[in-house]
């Protein structure tokens, strides 16, 4: 469904990404992993053209996102940035904003219906008229995901969606992402630091190392070897109650 090839990006003539290539199937969650500064967020932003890669293609259902207008990209790719600005927009207004790429001069009946459905599914209805700066971190993150969903995307990009959340909210948000991806037939790409969260909720893992793809593996192929090479940390992988966990030594 998504076929990324040869993405190269540099910043002030310093290579950040070199010849990145990977693919992702429908209904799957991909975790992008790597040390700080490995280019995870940059890669995510190259996929929906927030940053312009110097070369490469991003084929989503055989259409190249990199040669589309920003609006056409926004109709296909939902994006949740790492940082949110504090605003006084209400939850409803924020999610309605996600319909922007599809909107004409006025908001249509269908737009309202989609927003209502999404807020209901995300269990945010009771917060609908509150303004964003009254919400907790977990609630805010859910609103941002709801807005990305309102873009009616085929693919969701999430930049560190759990980095500012407590354990309970981390679990909740990741569960929500995975189940929405499955039931709506989307795919999601998540940059994430927490290996254990990634192992639990992602289906495939893309490791970045020295600006390049180190490996693209499924759950079963993930090894302590890969983690040691990428992070420079010795770990053991253990199964606890059927769930693989990473334990740094």
């Amino acid at each position, binding site marked *: 469904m998504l076929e990324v090839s040869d993405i190269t990006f540099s910043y002030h003539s310093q290579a950040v990404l070199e010849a990145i290539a990977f693919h992702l199937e429908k209904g799957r969650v991909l975790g992008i992993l790597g040390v700080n500064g490995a280019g995870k967020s940059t890669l995510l*932003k190259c996929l*929906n053209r*927030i940053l312009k890669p110097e070369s490469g293609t991003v084929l989503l259902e055989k259409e190249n996102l990199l040669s589309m*207008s*920003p*609006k*056409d*990209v*926004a*109709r296909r*790719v*939902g*994006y*949740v*940035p*790492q*940082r*949110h*600005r*504090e*605003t*006084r*927009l*209400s939850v*409803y*207004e*924020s999610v309605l*904003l*996600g319909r*922007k*790429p599809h*909107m004409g001069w006025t908001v249509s*009946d*269908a737009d*309202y*219906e*989609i*927003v*209502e*459905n*999404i*807020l*209901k*599914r995300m269990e945010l*209805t009771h917060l*609908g*008229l509150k*303004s964003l*700066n009254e919400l907790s971190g977990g609630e805010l993150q859910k609103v*941002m995901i709801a*807005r*990305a*969903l309102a*873009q*009616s995307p085929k693919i969701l*990009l999430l930049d560190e969606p759990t980095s500012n959340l407590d354990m309970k909210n981390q679990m909740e948000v990741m569960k929500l992402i995975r189940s929405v991806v499955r*039931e*709506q037939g989307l795919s999601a790409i998540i940059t994430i630091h927490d290996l254990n969260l990634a192992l639990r909720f992602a289906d495939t893992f893309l490791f970045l190392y020295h600006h390049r793809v180190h490996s693209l593996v499924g759950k079963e192929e993930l090894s302590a070897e890969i983690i040691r090479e990428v992070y420079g940390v010795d770990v053991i992988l253990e199964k606890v109650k059927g769930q693989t966990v990473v334990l740094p030594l």
Partner: protein
Amino acid sequence: MNFFNVSNNSLPAPLSSDISIRPLTSAFLDEVRKKRNLFLLLLLSTAGLGIWAVSQGTYEITPLQVLRALFGGSGQPSDIVVLNIRLPRIVAALVAGWGLSLSGLSIQSLLKNPLGSPSTLGISQGAAFGAALSIVIFGGQVLSVTAFAFAGAMAATAIILLLARLKRLSPEAVILAGVALSSLFASATTLIQYLASETQLALVVFWTFGDVARSGWREIGLLTVSVSLVSLFFLFRRWDLNALASGEECARGLGVNVDKIRMQGMIATSLVAALVTAFHGVIAFVGLLAPHMARRIVGADHRMLLPFSSVIGALLLLSADTLGRILVGSGSLPVGVITSFMGAPLFLWLLVRGYR
């Protein structure tokens, strides 16, 4: 449940009838309706105040006579007082307030900075410098003072925009550059004042007092057309502004061309600020205060914020000007003095009341 399988009724049923199906949407639309009514109320109050303000003055005119003069005329001498003497000032106050507030709001939104306004970017100081230059060095005919003030304001804008473009300054840095530029223009103005004769000095100082009584119908017409066009420009981009308010990356993710709208918007908004200042001198605080007041009333949605800011700006400046006329029996206090006096405490009050 798939979110996007929306019921495809060919009949656009009135939304309020679906309360059972879409409780949140109807609650949201109810709020929108309330805000719309409030907007109408504000608009009516502004018109009412305008008519009352026209009727005030040494030559006694009733509000009814004002209305008659506005709609067709009664053939009485009061018509002339209304149309030629009092009305221009009132309309100028309304349009200048609308323009300043629109300009403040758009600078705040485009540069993501609550301190954005024509005076924080150095636009007003640029205009004051231009006016001083014209009066002291070039002998200051009225038209040339206006032209110089306009050129000064646009020069400030051009420097800021060039810096932003060439050096790829962040929006925060743009505001800081504006502050530096303001202080540069202010000291240049002081230098010119130092060189001026006493009469010239008085003229320069008097020019800097913002005053809406200076312009005639031609200037008012020009200002009204440009403020309307720029309002339309921003109204067309209201969703883009909402996206920007949620953060730059979010806006880009929603397909907004952030650099383009920022550049176009800043040019449009500077034009308005430059015109207002060139015609009426430095009127402080309206551009800063009115958008913040509007935000407190209607939140951050630019669909509401744009019209509310505009009408609150108009209402504020007209109130200040009317107050100035009432306080000083004959003649009037320049409105710039009143806005500074009212503006600062009002702004502090807004902050203390928990502006978040």
